[in-house]
C-alpha cells in the first residue's frame, strides 16, 4: 500500500515542490508539442477505428439474413419462372419473405452504374428476387437443388461470398486503428521519457541539492513527474481539440454513399476523445516516473 502511495505521490499538488524544478525550458515546450501531435494522430486513428467498425457492422447487418435469386431466362419464360421460384420459396423452410423486384426497383439499383436513361425493358436483364430469411436460415444447398430442377434459369446467391471478405476487411481496419493507437501511445511514452531524461540531466544540480538536504526519492521524482504529466495533458487537450475540429470538417455520411461511412465520430464516439488527454497524461506520468527512478538509482 505504501509503495502505491509513494508511486502516486507525484499527483499531489505541493506549491513548494512544484517550484523546485524550473518551469520553463526547451524540453517543456517540446513535451507539450509532442503530446499535442500524438493526441492529434490518436484522434484520426480513433476516427478510422470507429468508421471501420461501423462499416463492418453495417455490412454484416445489411447482408445478413438476406439472399438473392437471379433468374435469367428468355423473355417469354421469365414471368413463368419467377412465379415458379416464388412458389418454391413459399414452401421452403427458413424463408421469411420473398419478393420479386419490380422493373422500376431494378432500374433504381442500376442507375448509379448506367445512368437514368437506360431503356431497361429492351435489355435482357435478369430478374431479382429478394429473400428475407428467418433467424434459423434456410438450407442453401437443398434450395439450389430444387431450383435447378424446377427453374433452370434461377441462381441462388446467399451473399456469403461478398459478406465474409468485406466484413473481415472492415474488422481488420478496426484492429489496425487500435494498433495505431497503441503504437502512438508507446511512441509518446518514449518521447516523454527522452524529454524527462533530458530535463533530469539539465537539472542535475537541483537533484544533487535536494538529495543533500534530505529529500527522498519520492519527493524528487514527484517534482518532475507532475510537470511532465501536466504538460502532456495540456498538449493532448490542444491536440484533441485540433483533431476534433479537423474531423468535423471531413465529409459527413450521406444517404447516397451508404455503403461507405463518414469518418466523423457519431454520437457517443465523441466521448472517447475526452479520454485521450488523461490517458496521455497517465502515459507521461509512468514514463517520467520510470526515467526519474532510473536516474536517481545512479545517485548516492
Amino acid at each position: 500500500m505504501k509503495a502505491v502511495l509513494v508511486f502516486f505521490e507525484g499527483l499531489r499538488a505541493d506549491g513548494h515542490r512544484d517550484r523546485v524544478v524550473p518551469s520553463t525550458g526547451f524540453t517543456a515546450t517540446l513535451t507539450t508539442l509532442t503530446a499535442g501531435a500524438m493526441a492529434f494522430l490518436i484522434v484520426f486513428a480513433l476516427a478510422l477505428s470507429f468508421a471501420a467498425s461501423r462499416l463492418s457492422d453495417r455490412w454484416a447487418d445489411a447482408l445478413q439474413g438476406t439472399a438473392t435469386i437471379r433468374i435469367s431466362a428468355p423473355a417469354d419464360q421469365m414471368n413463368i419462372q419467377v412465379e415458379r421460384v416464388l412458389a418454391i420459396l413459399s414452401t421452403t423452410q427458413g424463408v421469411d419473405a420473398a419478393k420479386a423486384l419490380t422493373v422500376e426497383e431494378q432500374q433504381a439499383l442500376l442507375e448509379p452504374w448506367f445512368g437514368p436513361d437506360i431503356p431497361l425493358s429492351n435489355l435482357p436483364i435478369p430478374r431479382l428476387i429478394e429473400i428475407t430469411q428467418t433467424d434459423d436460415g434456410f438450407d442453401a444447398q437443398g434450395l439450389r437443388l430444387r431450383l435447378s430442377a424446377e427453374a433452370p434459369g434461377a441462381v441462388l446467391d446467399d451473399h456469403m461470398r461478398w459478406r465474409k471478405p468485406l466484413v473481415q476487411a472492415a474488422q481488420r481496419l478496426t484492429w489496425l486503428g487500435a494498433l495505431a493507437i497503441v503504437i502512438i501511445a508507446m511512441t509518446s511514452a518514449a518521447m516523454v521519457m527522452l524529454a524527462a531524461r533530458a530535463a533530469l540531466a539539465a537539472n542535475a544540480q537541483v537533484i544533487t541539492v535536494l538529495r543533500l538536504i534530505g529529500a527522498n526519492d519520492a519527493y524528487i521524482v514527484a517534482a518532475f513527474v507532475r510537470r511532465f504529466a501536466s504538460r502532456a495533458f495540456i498538449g493532448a487537450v490542444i491536440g484533441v481539440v485540433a483533431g476534433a475540429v479537423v474531423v468535423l470538417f471531413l465529409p459527413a455520411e450521406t444517404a447516397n454513399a451508404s455503403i461507405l461511412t463518414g469518418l466523423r465520430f457519431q454520437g457517443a464516439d465523441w466521448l472517447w476523445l475526452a479520454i485521450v488527454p488523461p490517458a496521455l497524461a497517465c502515459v507521461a506520468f509512468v514514463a517520467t516516473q520510470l526515467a526519474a527512478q532510473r536516474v536517481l538509482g545512479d545517485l548516492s
Partner: protein
Amino acid sequence: MIELENVAYSYGGGELLSDMSLSISSGAFYFLTGPSGAGKTTFLKLCYGALVPTVGQIRIFGNDVRSMSRDDVAVMRRRIGVVHQDCQFIDHMSVQDNIALPLAVSGNKTLAEDANIKELLAWVGLTKRAKAFPPELSGGERQRAALARAIIMSPDVILADEPTGNVDWEMSERLLQLLLELNRMGKTVLIASHDLSLIRSAKSQVQARVLRISNRRLQLAGANL
C-alpha cells in the same frame, strides 16, 4: 553519533583512506585537516552516507550505512547539516526559499518555522538578501546561506567542507563564530579545513579536537599546531 570502524575507501585503484577508526562524540568540535587531495571530502562524504566504505563499518546514529535504504539515507540527512566548499543552491529560487527548502522537503512547513527563517536569516546576516537569488550572492554570502540551510532542521551534527575556502579572513572569522555558537548550543561540529590559522583561532575559543589525514590514515593531531 558517527562511528567508523576500520574503514577504508577506494575509488578503484589504490585505497585513498584506510584503516580509520573514530567515534565522533556528541557536542564535540572537530577539525579535519590534511593536504589537498588527502581525502578530507571523501571522509565527510562517508560521514553523511554519500559514500559507502569499501572496507569496514560506519554507523550513523547507530545505523549501519550499508543496511540503510535510499529513504533511510534521506531521513538521516535531515539530522546532518552539510556545508560544502562550493555550495550549490536551486538557482531559480530565492535565498529564503533555498534556506527553507529542507523544511519543505521533509514536509515540516509551518508558520512557526516561518518566523524561524527570519531569525535564522538575521543570525547569518542575510536578512537584506532574503529575496535575492543564489547566483547574485558573494562567496561569503553563499557560505552563510549554505550554513543557514544546513541548520534549519536543527540537525545534531554539522559537517562543513572548507567553509572558508572561498572567503577572506574576516568572513572566515565570522563563519567560525557562527559554527562556534552552534557548538555551544550543543551541536557536534566537524570542519574540514587546511587553514591552520582558522584552526588556531578556534582552538583559542573552544576545545577543538584536530584530526589529520596523512598517509591515508586518520590521526589525532597533538596540541602542537
